């Protein structure tokens, strides 16, 4: 199914104009008490949700903005909020 993504600058566009930037994982862990294992988890481990997840996208062929959207990974459709229902 064709993915469309809503860029905050350019509006709704074809998904092929964008580059995927990974899951939104919250703020970078505090340097204090940071272990190699917890850093590795933060960088490499993903939740791989079957459902709605917040994720980063980069408007590569457009305005060059980085932003997050909510996407249902089972339907590949953008959602307005995490609770959005069909």
């Amino acid at each position, binding site marked *: 199914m064709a993915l469309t993504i809503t860029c905050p600058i350019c509006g709704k566009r074809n998904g092929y104009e964008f580059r995927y930037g990974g899951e939104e994982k919250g703020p970078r862990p505090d340097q204090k008490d940071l272990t190699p294992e917890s850093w590795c988890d933060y960088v490499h481990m993903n939740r791989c949700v079957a459902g709605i997840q917040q994720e980063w996208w980069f408007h590569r062929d457009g*305005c060059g903005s980085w932003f997050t959207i909510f996407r249902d990974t089972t339907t590949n459709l953008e959602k307005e909020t995490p609770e959005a229902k069909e």
Partner: protein
Amino acid sequence: MKDIKRYSAVEFKATPLKNQKRGDWDVVLEYHGEGEGPWLVDLSHRTRLDLQSSDLATKKPFGITIPETPCRSVLEKGMLLNRMNRIQTSIYHLDGETIDIPEEKEYTDVTEATIFVAIFGSRVFSVCEKLSNLDFAGENKQTPFLFQGPFSHVPCQIVTLSREAEKSGVVLTCSRGYGKHMIDGILHAGEEFGLTPAGEARFTSWINNL
């Protein structure tokens, strides 16, 4: 010291009728057999600037107020200002004498990094829709307005200046390296609509009638 000569990345297979030496550029004012339009004009010699500042609201390049909303443009005194995002504005010098580039460090001259062409005349949007899925006619938008997106699969800035029948037209800029193939693509797409290369004089006449 040798003279500098600047070349546009855009080359047309048409015979120039009138040329003009302008700075380091050799500008074609008119080509043989320009036809009835639509036309494609190389404007790569026209100055383009990038203005980047965290406080754009206080900036007034060339005495012109920058639009507040991204993707809105303003055409005044021969200058086209396009609000790109929160911190960037692109500035195109479309008409009039050579400009002095502001000395502030927020301004970057990108003239030689990009190509710059205008496509105008009737059925210009028919040409454009063969090369991009973006809606340059944008019926619900007030002209001029900016699109940042793919045109012939190349990331471009495209500004619709008018969508009034015969006066319809856009200006387009993209990285210089894509120049030759971008022009080939546009001319090929416009062949069935009679798109022909034209000199700067035709563009000047069009922009002054908007």
